[in-house]
């Protein structure tokens, strides 16, 4: 590891950024396809075979659109907000390992840009900055809908971040480490995915990850039925695209985190050999679940969303933490 030169790290960083953006482009197609099938229609089919060239058409359109800005908007913050949202989303993925270190003879190829011993804290710290981009964008637009959307994003963050933290702490207690590779190693040692003793923590994590990424049924920050488009009402072209990209890359980060913390990461089920493809498969199922939720549930009312976070998820998270820490302190998973 110490032999990694600057150039090597640079190349790997560029590859990761391209990978995330490519995954975003094709996940968009997948989502539109899946939503289409849920609603008994075809989804995109016109651009390329089976609609597969749709992201190229979308990207061209986004780049070609005029960049509008409302008259009363706070110029600097208006421009900075989508950039910040995208920066934070991409940055959070820095420490996520996508698989076990590959070995080619002497050559070791770790599947992460960086793998610090407390990677989990890094991800959580960066993820919680995500709300700034959204609420700054909503505020800077100086439009009523956008402002309401930005405020709702903040309300959602204060309601779900704590429950998310509690479920992550239960995973930390169970594995006894803050390292993401360590998390998977702990699950490998015990031959059991952390989801099995910690099922409640997993459920809380899934609900909070939907809320954290502002996805339906918790998509109150954009709520197209009541707030036009919420915080990005006044954004057009590539600035709007930045917000969308940030939302989807945050989904990738949270699905990777959920798969590593609770679903055994790159460990295969039924004792099958571990491989990065297992993690990709688990993330894909996790992301499919996001789309499934969006196709199934209506949006929750704003005040109910807050009281659900505070009066249901937080107490449940605490109870789960009590159970998991008693389990560990009294000799489980030693």
């Amino acid at each position, binding site marked *: *590891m*110490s032999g*990694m*030169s*600057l150039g090597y*790290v*640079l190349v*790997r*960083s560029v590859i*990761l*950024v391209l990978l995330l953006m490519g995954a975003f482009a094709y996940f968009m197609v997948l989502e539109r396809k899946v939503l289409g099938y849920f609603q008994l229609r075809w989804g995109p089919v016109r651009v390329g075979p089976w609609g597969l060239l749709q992201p190229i058409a979308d990207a061209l359109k986004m780049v070609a659109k*005029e*960049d509008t*800005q*409302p*008259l009363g908007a706070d110029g600097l913050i208006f421009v900075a907000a*989508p*950039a910040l949202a*995208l*920066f934070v989303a*991409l*940055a959070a993925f*820095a*420490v996520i390992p996508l698989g076990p270190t590959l070995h080619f003879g002497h050559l070791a190829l770790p599947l992460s*840009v*960086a793998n*610090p011993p407390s*990677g989990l*804290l890094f991800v959580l710290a960066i993820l919680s900055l995500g709300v700034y981009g959204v609420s700054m964008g909503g505020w800077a637009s*100086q*439009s*009523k809908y*956008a*402002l309401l959307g930005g405020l709702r994003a903040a*309300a959602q963050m*204060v*309601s779900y971040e*704590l429950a998310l*933290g509690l479920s992550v*702490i239960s995973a*930390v207690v169970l594995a*006894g*480490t*803050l390292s993401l590779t360590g998390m998977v190693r702990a699950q490998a040692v015990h031959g059991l995915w952390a989801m099995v003793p910690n099922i409640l923590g997993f459920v809380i994590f899934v609900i909070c990850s939907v809320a954290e990424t502002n996805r339906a049924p918790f998509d109150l920050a954009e709520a197209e039925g009541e707030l*036009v488009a919420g915080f990005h009402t006044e954004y057009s*072209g*590539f600035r709007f695209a*930045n917000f969308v990209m940030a939302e989807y890359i945050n989904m990738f980060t949270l699905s990777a985190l959920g798969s590593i913390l609770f679903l055994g990461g790159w460990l295969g089920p039924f004792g099958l050999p571990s491989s990065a493809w297992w993690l990709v498969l688990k993330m894909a199922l996790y992301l499919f679940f996001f789309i499934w939720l969006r196709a199934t549930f209506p949006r929750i009312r704003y*005040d109910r969303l*807050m*009281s659900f976070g*505070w009066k249901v998820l*937080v*107490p449940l998270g*605490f109870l789960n933490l*009590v159970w998991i*820490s008693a389990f*560990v*302190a*009294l000799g489980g998973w030693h």
Partner: protein
Amino acid sequence: MPPYQAAAVYLGVVAVVVLAITGGIGRLRSRQRTGAKQAPYECGVSTDAGVGPRFPVRFYLVAMLFVILDVEAIAFYPWGVRLRALGGVGLEDMAIFAVVLAIGYAYVWKKGGLDWR
């Protein structure tokens, strides 16, 4: 290269990409600024009043509670990592802390601090 330096290099790459998108693409095409286009969107009705400098935030109390509880939750991370070594004593100590926290939480709930007002 130590992991945090590698992460910093990655953050640098991300910053360059984001700045290129923000600064570069915006200059690619012409802008035509007209009055109606620059007005904030109001579903076709012309704007009579702006957003205004002050507005009530109904969840301010919840937001403050969030800051307090989230800071307290930080204490759980190092404890969680070391719980195996601490054993039953660690469990007792954290139980005392958690009970204090739970009393505060129950008080806030009973007083209606988690409701909208």
